[in-house]
């Protein structure tokens, strides 16, 4: 199946890269070509900027153009739309101001290249996506920027294409490891993994209204102070866990930084030590979705081994992956080998190199 077939179910499709130059825009260009061929009406926006000629950090790197056709909808800034020189009908003048100008929504009346720079904020991305759907777009493509993930939240998008590539490391194993970790993150299990508690935890979170909670199997949950996950240290966490020895779920309303997880590891170790071992003290951290989790050096697997399990309230579906075997101005891997290694490490998702003859063959 082609990228466009795999992703057809997502009305709002997010394209996310694990770093710069992982081939997100190539994936977008390929997808656009396929959607044009099958006559779909698309709406395109970008949380960054797409279709620029050169990379914004390394000008030696040329970027692919974003080619749209008559009838396509686009959210981009007034200046970039004007610079495209393409005839268009203005559909909406949004309140969104970006460093490159105010965002407009337009329907193109002719084919050509356009630089796309829509809203950056997740709420605004969702709003322009819905506006384009209301104006007749059948599918919205939301291109990411650098390694930003917020627009791939289930609050914004219905499905996801993830792009990875050689740029992550000059060691092919490391590319595989990092990619596998990123996939594991977007595939964090939901609360449905604990069906006996799913409903209760869901209603507790709803009732908390944006506050974070510490929840045991029985009894009332403890309300955590504001900014808890942004600032609490091991001592504070330890005291909290001592106060609530039956606590099993930590339900966080906002961001989950790596710092907090590390402090939590220290606190739960001390907790286990005081209890004389055993795994009865395992703690499940529940966040809204994977875009709320900010890991640094340690992987989900490592935290799991420390007795800390993560769950999301809402999942996002990873529909396909693309890989760029070339790190611009640096090294490259054999495309087939890299894809084979990734496929071995990551189950249940097609992985394509859209510039490889293998993919062209698929298209025929």
């Amino acid at each position, binding site marked *: 199946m082609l990228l466009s077939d795999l992703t057809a179910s997502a009305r709002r499709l997010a394209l996310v890269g694990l770093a710069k130059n992982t081939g997100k825009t190539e994936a977008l260009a390929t997808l656009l070509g396929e959607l044009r061929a099958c006559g779909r009406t698309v709406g395109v926006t970008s949380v960054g900027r797409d279709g620029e000629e050169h990379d914004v*950090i390394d000008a030696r790197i040329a970027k692919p153009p974003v080619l749209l056709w008559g009838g396509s909808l686009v959210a981009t800034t*007034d200046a970039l739309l004007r610079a495209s020189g393409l005839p268009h009908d203005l559909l909406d003048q949004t309140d969104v101001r970006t*460093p*490159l100008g105010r965002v407009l929504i337009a329907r193109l009346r002719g084919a050509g290249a356009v630089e796309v720079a829509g809203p950056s904020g997740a709420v605004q991305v969702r709003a322009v996506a819905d506006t384009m759907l209301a104006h007749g777009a059948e599918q919205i493509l939301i291109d990411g920027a650098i390694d930003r993930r*917020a627009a791939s939240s289930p609050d914004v998008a219905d499905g996801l294409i993830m792009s990875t590539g050689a740029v992550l490391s000059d060691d092919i194993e490391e590319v595989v490891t990092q990619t596998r970790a990123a996939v594991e993150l977007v595939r964090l299990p939901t609360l449905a993994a604990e069906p006996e508690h799913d409903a209760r935890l869901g209603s507790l979170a709803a009732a908390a209204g944006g506050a974070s909670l510490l929840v045991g199997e029985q009894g009332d949950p403890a309300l955590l102070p504001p900014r808890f996950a942004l600032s609490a240290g091991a001592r504070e966490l330890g005291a909290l866990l001592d106060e609530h020895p039956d606590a099993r779920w930590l339900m966080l309303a906002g961001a989950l930084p790596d710092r*907090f997880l590390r402090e939590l590891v220290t606190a739960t170790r001390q907790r286990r030590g005081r209890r004389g071992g055993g795994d009865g003290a395992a703690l499940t951290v529940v966040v809204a979705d994977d875009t709320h989790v900010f890991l640094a050096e340690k992987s989900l697997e490592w935290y799991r081994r420390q007795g800390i399990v993560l769950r999301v309230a809402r999942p996002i579906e990873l529909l396909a992956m693309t890989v760029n075997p070339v790190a611009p101005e640096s090294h490259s891997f054999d495309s087939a080998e890299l894809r084979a290694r990734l496929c071995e490490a990551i189950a249940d998702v097609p992985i394509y190199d859209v510039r490889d003859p293998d993919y062209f063959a698929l298209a025929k």
Partner: protein
Amino acid sequence: MRSLERGGLTGRRDSVTVPREVDLSAVRPYADHLGDGLVQMSFTLPVPYSLAVRKAALELAARIGFEEPEVVHFEELTEGYTYFVMYGRCTQTVDFAALQGEGFEIEYMSEDEIERFAAEHLARKVVVVGASTGSDTHSVGIDAMLNLKGYHGHHGLEGYHAFETHNLGSQVPNSVLLAKAIEVNADAILVSQTVTQQNLHVHNLTELVEMVEAEGRRAQMILACGGPRVSNELAKELGYDAGFSKGTEPQHLATFIVRELAARVSAA
């Protein structure tokens, strides 16, 4: 050795026709008169000081595309290295007319105008939290923008009535910066970061934006980033509302913040 005055070129430039007005569709560098295209450049070649290296520098400038390249100064920088100051005539032009009206121009207000604007439109102090994040140890940029002493003879935001500032210094983790911003109900976060081609620095900047999103505060908080290589184009990619680079003075940043905040207040 000749001085840095460009006396040696005068005779030749007399033959150039002197336009009286700038042709905005074909702008080129300017030294003595419009359209002369004269460029001063300096660079170092990693070879010993000699007449041969002077010739090499001339050839290099010609290859870059400069007409009438001339070495006006060269000296040994250290053993094995020769430093050059050169002039050359640039033959290229740029179409400035096509770039105008791109929305990149920002008119800046003076300190007094900013104070008046804030008093009129905001009726409360504007809270700004700033830091150099991650492993970046440079706090000079953030200090120049926020501290009373400021930069280039202009107060930092701390010196304004309109602003309440919190400068957290350097090497601040994103989560700590954001916790402080939420605690003091910040209107704007200012981050300074030296962006390199290493993904780490870029990741520090994007991670803050993503954390603000995860906290559900993106629509309320103005995010601005600054650093030697930060442009508006890069800021857009990173997810910030504005990017500030070299040459930014505190009143430029202050103008952006009060105007953007006023626009958000009136839209809300």
